[in-house]
C-alpha cells in the first residue's frame, strides 16, 4: 500500500507527508487490528477454555469460590471414567453404599458415551453420503438445465426448511413408530436428510451456477450424457463446495438434538448430544464430569471444522471462479 501511495503522489513534499502519514496509519491500523483480533479470540475461545479447565478439576476444587481458572490439582479422573469404565460385576459386597448425591459420582450412562460417538459418526457419514447422492444431481439439474418448473423447484426446496423441527416431530414420530423404526439410526438418517438437503442444494446451486455453461455444452458435443457431464466435468470443479457441503452436513447431523431425543430410546441408537444432555441430571451433579463429557463431545466437530476451514469460505464464495 505504501508503494501505491508512493506512485500516486507526484509532488515530493506531499509525498513526504503522505509517506509519514501512511506509515503512522499503517502502525495505527496494525495496532487496531491486533487489538480487535485479541478481543475476538478472547470472545470465541474463553468459554471453551473454561470448559476444558473445569474438566480437569476435581469435584472439591471445582466448587471453589472464586473459581480456580487454572486447576491447582489437575486430574484425569473424569476422562478415565468415560473411556475406561470398569465393567466389573456389581455384587452386594462390592456395591457403593453411598447416595449418588455425595458427588464425584460418575453416572452409569457414562459408558454410553463411546457407543454414542460411534452412532453419531455412522449417522453423520450416512447422511453425508446420501446428501451428496441426492443433492448433487438435483443441484446440477437446477443450475444447468432449463426445464419447466425450475424456479418453483428451487423455492419449494428452500421452503421446506421454513418448517420448524418441532412441527415435524409429532407426525414423523407417529409414522416412524408405525414403521417400527423407532430406536433405529435409520430414522435419524432419513430425518436429517430432509433437514440438510435444502441447504446442500442451495450451496451447490450457487456454486454450479458460477461455473461456466460452455463446459457443459462442450461435453455434450463430445457425446457425454447429462450424467457423465455432471460426474466427469462439473464435480471435479466443484470440489470446494462439495467439501463445504460435507462439512455442513456432517456437523448438522452430529449436533442435532431435538429429533434424536424423540426418535432414540436406548443407547443402541442414541447420539452424542443425547448422552451428554442426560448428564445434566440432578443425581450426579458431578460438575467436573459434566464438563469432561462436554469436552469429549466437542472435540470431533472442532477437529473436523478446523481441518476443512479453508474450504468453507471458498466453497461458499459465489463468483469466485469466473470465466
Amino acid at each position, binding site marked *: 500500500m505504501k508503494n501505491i501511495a508512493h506512485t500516486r503522489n507526484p509532488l515530493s513534499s506531499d509525498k513526504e507527508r503522505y509517506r509519514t502519514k501512511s506509515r503512522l496509519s499503517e502502525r495505527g491500523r496494525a495496532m487496531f487490528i491486533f487489538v480487535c483480533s485479541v478481543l475476538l479470540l478472547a470472545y470465541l475461545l474463553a468459554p471453551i477454555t473454561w470448559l476444558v479447565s473445569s474438566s480437569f478439576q476435581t469435584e472439591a476444587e471445582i466448587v471453589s469460590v472464586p473459581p480456580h481458572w487454572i486447576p491447582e490439582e489437575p486430574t484425569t479422573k473424569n476422562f478415565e471414567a468415560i473411556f475406561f469404565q470398569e465393567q466389573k*460385576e*456389581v*455384587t*452386594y459386597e*462390592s*456395591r*457403593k*453404599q*453411598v*447416595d*449418588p*448425591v*455425595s*458427588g464425584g459420582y460418575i*453416572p*452409569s*450412562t457414562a459408558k454410553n458415551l463411546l457407543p454414542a460417538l460411534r452412532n453419531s459418526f455412522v449417522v453423520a457419514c450416512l447422511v453425508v453420503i446420501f446428501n451428496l447422492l441426492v443433492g448433487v444431481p438435483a443441484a446440477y439439474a437446477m443450475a444447468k438445465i432449463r426445464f419447466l418448473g425450475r424456479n418453483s423447484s428451487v423455492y419449494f426446496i428452500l421452503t421446506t426448511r421454513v418448517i420448524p423441527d418441532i412441527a415435524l416431530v409429532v407426525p414423523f*414420530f407417529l409414522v416412524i*413408530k408405525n414403521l*417400527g*423404526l*423407532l*430406536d*433405529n439410526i*435409520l430414522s435419524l438418517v432419513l430425518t436429517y436428510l430432509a433437514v440438510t438437503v435444502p441447504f446442500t442444494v442451495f450451496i451447490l446451486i450457487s456454486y454450479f451456477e458460477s461455473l461456466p455453461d460452455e463446459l457443459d455444452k462442450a461435453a455434450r458435443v463430445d457425446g457425454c*450424457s447429462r*450424467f457423465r457431464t455432471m460426474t466427469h466435468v462439473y464435480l471435479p470443479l466443484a470440489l470446494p463446495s462439495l467439501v463445504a457441503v460435507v462439512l455442513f452436513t456432517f456437523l448438522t447431523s452430529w449436533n442435532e438434538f431435538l429429533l434424536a*431425543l*424423540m*426418535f432414540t*430410546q*436406548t443407547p443402541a441408537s442414541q447420539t452424542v448430544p443425547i448422552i451428554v444432555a*442426560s448428564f445434566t*441430571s*440432578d*443425581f*450426579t*451433579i458431578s460438575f467436573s464430569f459434566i464438563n469432561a463429557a462436554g469436552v469429549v463431545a466437542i472435540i470431533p466437530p472442532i477437529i473436523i471444522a478446523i481441518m476443512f476451514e479453508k474450504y468453507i469460505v471458498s466453497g461458499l464464495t459465489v463468483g469466485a471462479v469466473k470465466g
Partner: protein
Amino acid sequence: MTKDAITKFGRRKFLKYSGAAGVAGSLSGGLAGQVMAAETIHFSAWSAAVDLVKSHVNAFQKSKGLNVNYSNFPWAQYRETMVTRLVGGAPLDMMWVSDAWLPEWAEAGWIKPVDGFKDLMKYNAEAEKFCTDSMTYNGRQYGLTYYTDFMGFMYDADKLKKAGISSPPKTWDDVTQQCLKIKEAGISEYPLMLALAKESWLIEFMAAMVYSQGGRFTDDKGMGAMDSASEGALKALQWVVDAVHKHKIVSPACVETGELTGLKAFASGNHAFALEPKYRMRHLNDPKQSKIAGNVKQILMPKGDGGSHATVGWMRFHGMSAAAAADKRRAANTAKLIEWFGGKADGEYKFQKYLFTDIGAGFGVKPLFNDLDVQKAYNSYTDVNVIKKQQALARKKDMVTPWFGEWQEVNGSAWQSAILQKASPQEALKKVTNTWNKLKKQA
C-alpha cells in the same frame, strides 16, 4: 442413445434393489432385536442407589436365570423421560412409578394392575396400609412398594446454638423469627433452604408447606381449592413470598435450586434450616458425605396459624407396563422381578433393608421395623420417636388425578411467578384453581 438407455436403466435397477435391500436389512435387524427382547426384562428406574439396584439385579439374574436390562434416568426429569418412552413404545416391562402419576398412567393405559398375581398380592398383609392405598386406583392395585417417605423439617443444631436459640421452632412464625436472628448474627445469609425449581420434587415441598399451614389443594368435591383464603394454599405461598422479599431469609435463587443442589448446599453448612425428605437424614449425618454431620436434627413440621404439624407423605412403587401385561410370559417374568424387589428375595426383604441402610429410604413393610440392624441404623443418625410421630401425621396428596401432570406445570409456574413477584399470590393461585377445574371438566 442406446448406451444411455442401458446405463439409465442399470442405474434405476441398482437404486431399486439397493433400496429394497436397505429396507429389508433394517426390518430384519428389527425383528432380530425383537426376538432377543422376549428373553430380557426391561427395567427402568430413576438414578437412586444405582449400585444397589445393579447388585440386586445381578442376584436375580443368577437366581432365576432371566436376563434383565436395567436403565436409569435422573429423578428430576423422570416423568418426562418415561412419558416419551411410553408414547414411543420403547421396550419396557417393569418401571418405578410415583404415586402422583398413578391415575395419569393408568388412564393412559401405560401400566396395568398386578392384582391378578397372587404371588405379589400376598405381601399386602405385611405392608403399610398407606402404601397399599396409594398404589390402588379405581379398586385395582398396580404394583408393590418401592419406598415410602414424608417431607421432614431439619435444622442444624450447631447453628442454632451459636445464635443463642434454645429450642427449635414450632410454628412458621418461630421459623421466621429464628431465621432473622441467625441472619443478624451473621451465621448464615439465607438461613432457610428451600428448593423450588420446577422438577419432580416441587409438588412435595409445596404440599408439605400447604398442609402444615392448614390448607389443602382440593375440596371435598374434588374441585380446586387452592386460592381459598381460609382453606387453600394462599397462606403457604404468602409465607414463602414474604420470606424471600420481606424478611430475606430465603434466597431468591430458590426458584432455580433443585432438591439435590439444595441438599448439597445445606450439607455444606450454608443454611440453618431445610425442608428435606426424611431419608436425607442419612446423608446429612454421615461424616463422610456431609460437613455438618452429627448436628442435623429433625423436628415436626412447623405449624401455621390454624394449621398442624402435618406434612405430605408419598410412596413410589414397582409397576408393570401394559406391553408386558399383554404377553403371558413377559408378565410372569416381570412379576418375578417385581416380587424380587418389592417383596422378598430369597426369603427376606433384602432390597428394602439395604435401601434403607444405604441411603435411608423408608420402607413400607412392617416386619423390618423389628429388624435389629434397621433399628441400629435409625438410631445412629436420627430420633426414631420424631419420625414415628411425623409419619402418623403424613397426609396423602390430594391432587393426584389423571390430569395431575398437566396441572402441575401451571401450578409450578404460578408459585414461581408469585415468588418472583410477577404476580400476586392471589392471582397466581386463582389461575391454578381455574386450570384445575377446567382440566377436571375436560377429563
